[in-house]
């Protein structure tokens, strides 16, 4: 019979937990007791007892860690690390500062990205909350971000998987606040909205929400109404001029900024139903949002299929394919697939988020590489220390640990310093990103975790290389002081190349975005927007609009006024030819004010009643798409409202009424009153305060209490490219930081290289080498790195940017010109960085470095 032994694992575990001075006694006793119990009461009892005793021995473990070797060594590492940092404080502080910049940028960008991606997730049921959207296939696929009133009415009755459902629609009103009447967007919703989203009421509640004369408001609105106490009523004026007081039945806490839905004033959807009876029964009258929460076990695809089925039973969709879908609530923020509106605001752009992330990662990688290179060269002075440690018996693992601890120490300092940097740049970034970041945002535990994760990544990224280099060198040469870091190492070189590739990537991006934006802003859209003011009409009463127009024309300085309805969409059908076309109701001044060019025919003439009743002016794209030949004076089969087979009286040259990411689309202009006028353009030479005041007075005379708001048309056009200019700005900052960091890295590498070769340079100088020769000696090898990095960077940039530019109708060419500018920028800066380090060997006094031999 083989000898019975205590369980091996328990024995191992015991050995692990026991402090060394107790091993003999306790382990010995336990083993002896095992034998004793084995002989007396059998194996299973002995084993059970042994395991129990091992478990009870855990109490000795606390004695173990108190005089732990590893812990003592750790203390020693920290102490030595601290002394070394202090000894090389100038060099180290540059090193740490560079890393701090990288960490700060990475931290900032990761907070931004985390925040953007965590949008709307704070609602408890956000995971099973959806919005109804529709895909309509009709001359191409139309993605419609919205639903109708009746869907919100019928779906919950017919689909049991819907837990709660609410309609959500904007309501434009004037709100009477403590500081006067202001335009405000209130929202109409169903009572279920309070079950879908996490509302927190500070007073009152939503129990009387179904009363159409009661509202619930957010705290911020309450504060605007009255300073001291929450008022009982508020006064709203609708856009048809009716003023009414509403009872405030509850006040809730405002939703945080990372919310797509942020209502200020909520009123029951019945309020809408009461005033819009004619819009309640049409299934595909899409003019509001419907959000819903599904039951826990429901499948969104099944529910949307059922919805589509119900929709098709209730409407005639022959000739087109329609499908209802459920868009996850948390996806609304970053998705540009479906439009948002009616109180839902999608502000994020995925590309922008990725760009921020890329810049953050790039900066972190570049600065980590710098840090690694800096550290290696800094620690080279400690080869003797490492050699002594090794002779005294510390293995490679211990030396490795030591340097990891030291690097962790430096990167922790960098983390603290990066907080200071964030303190400075966070307010700037907040303004830029339209967020309210302060340094306290970053001290929130969630983002502190992010910070520490970054810290660990940095320590790993930048710690391994120097630690491996330092722990692994040859003992004898080290102690003789003969070792030097070879700059021939493939790894070292490729790091430099990577840094430059990343910097070049961002620099090229910067140039491309800059040029593309310039191109778009300077692009002639086919009309003249200079000196034109744009206003929105609050009250579409035709008489009022006519009156305001005539009053405005009386103001000196105004040369012309035009009214128009805005771009609308319809389908043109003529036999086989079917396409979507834009149409716009304008007046006779529209074409002259915008200086649109008529290529054939004439402008509208209001003195001819036929022009008003059935005259249209179409653009060239329309002619092309419709395949018309010489259409002026002929009737075309265009139909919209009462406008039936109108006569073409003129052809206008194509102009970009849409932004430059969109193709030139067909357009029909008419005067026939199929739409109310909603916009006014005023052309004037002067835009001074007196003039604006005069305009303001005229406006109020007609539209009071609606305030007078105006925008320069050219400003409005620029805003179309807001996103592009945001991207441009962001890459600009990213590129500048990346170049700065990459140059720091270059300086570090060159500096190390130079210091190691001072003696060689001195001998060369003694033998007659000129500064120019020395310069060339060093420069040539770095030119190669820079060029290889440049090639990689520009290839990557061209590849990615090329596909991005493809969506624009007008786009810059990515050619040698941009490469050349980017090369020039990079090489000039790199040259200066290298030169600053080469100054020393070029002009050193050889005696100084040769003296000791």
């Amino acid at each position: 019979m083989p000898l019975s032994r205590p369980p091996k694992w328990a024995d191992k575990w015991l050995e692990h937990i026991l402090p060394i001075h107790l091993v003999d006694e306790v382990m010995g006793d336990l083993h002896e007791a095992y034998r004793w119990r084995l002989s007396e009461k059998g194996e299973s009892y002995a084993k059970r007892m042994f395991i129990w005793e091992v478990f009870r021995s855990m109490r000795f473990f606390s004695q173990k860690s108190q005089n732990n070797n590893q812990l003592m060594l750790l203390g020693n590492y920290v102490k030595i690390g601290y002394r070394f940092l202090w000894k090389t404080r100038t060099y180290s502080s540059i090193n740490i500062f560079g890393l701090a910049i990288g960490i700060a940028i990475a931290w900032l960008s990761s907070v931004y990205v985390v925040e953007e991606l965590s949008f709307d997730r704070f609602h408890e049921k956000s995971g099973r909350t959806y919005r109804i959207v529709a895909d309509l296939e009709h001359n191409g696929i139309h993605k419609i971000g919205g639903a109708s009133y009746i869907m919100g009415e019928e779906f919950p009755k017919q689909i049991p998987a819907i837990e709660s459902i609410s309609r959500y629609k904007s309501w434009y009103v004037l709100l009477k606040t403590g500081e006067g009447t202001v335009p405000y967007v209130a929202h109409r919703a169903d009572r279920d909205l309070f079950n879908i989203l996490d509302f927190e009421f500070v007073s009152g509640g939503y129990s009387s929400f179904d009363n159409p004369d009661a509202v619930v408001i957010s705290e911020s609105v309450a504060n605007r109404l009255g300073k001291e106490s929450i008022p009982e009523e508020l006064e709203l004026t609708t856009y048809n001029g009716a003023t009414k007081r509403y009872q405030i039945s509850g006040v809730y806490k405002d939703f945080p900024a990372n919310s797509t839905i942020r209502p200020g004033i909520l009123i029951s959807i019945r309020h809408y139903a009461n005033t819009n009876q004619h819009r309640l029964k049409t299934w595909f009258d899409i003019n509001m949002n419907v959000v819903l929460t599904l039951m826990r076990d429901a499948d969104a695809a099944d529910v949307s299929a059922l919805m589509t089925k119900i929709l098709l039973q209730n409407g005639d969709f022959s000739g087109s394919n329609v499908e209802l879908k459920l868009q996850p609530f948390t996806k609304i923020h970053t998705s540009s697939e479906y439009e948002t509106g009616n109180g839902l605001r999608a502000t994020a752009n995925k590309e922008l988020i990725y760009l921020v992330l890329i810049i953050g990662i790039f900066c972190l990688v570049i600065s980590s590489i710098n840090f690694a290179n800096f550290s290696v060269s800094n620690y080279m002075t400690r080869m003797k220390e490492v050699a002594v440690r090794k002779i005294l018996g510390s293995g490679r693992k211990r030396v490795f640990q030591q340097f990891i601890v030291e690097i962790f120490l430096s990167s922790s300092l960098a983390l603290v310093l990066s907080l200071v940097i964030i303190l400075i740049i966070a307010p700037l970034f907040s303004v830029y990103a339209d967020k309210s970041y302060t340094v306290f945002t970053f001290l929130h535990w969630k983002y502190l975790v992010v910070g520490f994760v970054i810290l660990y990544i940095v320590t790993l990224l930048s710690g391994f290389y120097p630690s491996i280099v330092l722990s692994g060198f040859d003992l004898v040469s080290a102690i003789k002081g003969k070792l030097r870091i070879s700059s021939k190492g493939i790894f070292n070189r490729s790091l430099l190349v990577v840094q430059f590739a990343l910097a070049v990537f961002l620099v090229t991006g910067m140039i491309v975005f800059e040029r593309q934006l310039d191109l778009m802003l300077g692009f002639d859209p086919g009309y003249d927007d200079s000196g034109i003011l744009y206003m929105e009409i609050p009250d579409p009463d035709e008489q009022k609009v006519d009156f305001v127009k005539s009053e405005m024309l009386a103001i000196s300085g105004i040369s012309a006024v035009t009214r128009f309805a805005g771009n609308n969409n319809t389908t043109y059908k003529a036999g086989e030819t079917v396409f979507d076309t834009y149409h716009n109701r304008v007046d006779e001044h529209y074409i002259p004010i915008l200086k649109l060019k008529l290529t054939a025919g004439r402008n509208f003439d209001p003195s001819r009643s036929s022009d008003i009743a059935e005259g249209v002016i179409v653009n060239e794209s329309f002619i092309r798409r419709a395949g018309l030949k010489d259409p002026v004076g002929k009737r075309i089969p265009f139909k919209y409202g009462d406008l039936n087979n109108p006569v073409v009286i003129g052809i206008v040259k194509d102009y970009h009424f849409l932004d430059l990411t969109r193709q030139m689309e067909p357009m029909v202009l008419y005067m026939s009153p199929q739409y109310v006028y909603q916009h006014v353009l005023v052309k004037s030479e002067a835009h001074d305060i007196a003039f604006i005041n005069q305009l303001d007075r005229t406006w109020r005379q007609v539209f009071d209490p609606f305030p007078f708001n105006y925008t320069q048309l050219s400003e409005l056009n620029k805003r179309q490219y807001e996103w592009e200019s945001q991207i441009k700005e962001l890459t600009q900052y990213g590129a500048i930081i990346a170049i700065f960091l990459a140059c720091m890295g270059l300086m570090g590498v060159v500096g190390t290289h130079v210091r190691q070769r001072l003696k060689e340079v001195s001998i060369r100088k003694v033998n007659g080498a000129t500064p120019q020769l020395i310069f060339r000696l060093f420069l040539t090898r770095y030119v190669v790195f820079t060029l290889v990095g440049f090639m990689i960077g520009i290839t990557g940039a061209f590849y990615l940017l090329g596909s991005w530019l493809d969506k624009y109708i007008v786009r810059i060419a990515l050619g040698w010109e941009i490469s050349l500018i980017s090369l020039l920028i990079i090489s000039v800066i790199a040259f200066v960085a290298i030169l600053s380090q080469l100054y020393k060997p070029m002009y050193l006094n050889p005696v100084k470095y040769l003296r000791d031999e």
Partner: protein
Amino acid sequence: MNDYSLGALEELILLVLLSQGKTYGVEIAKQYEHHFNQSISLPAIHVVLKRLEKKGFVKSEFGEPTAERGGRRKRNYEATDLGYKLAVKLQENRNRIWSTIPKMEVKYATI
């Protein structure tokens, strides 16, 4: 002397040490089981021994390694003079109190 107090297990182990002379963990466990007819875990004994040693009632030294211990040394414990005095003192105290307890009579017996 009166400042020292001992837990029940501490006192028992001290008594075992006094009666056995020089001894070690497993032997104490055997004695304990012999006297009280119930098992005891060794770490409990170890902890008590360390505590007694810290208080100065026992002293210890390494003994011989044996095969059944896996070649590990014993640690032999021995009561000190102080330990002896304390045990005597505790026993005297107990006797004094015991003497005041009346003989068991009817009132206990009927319970």
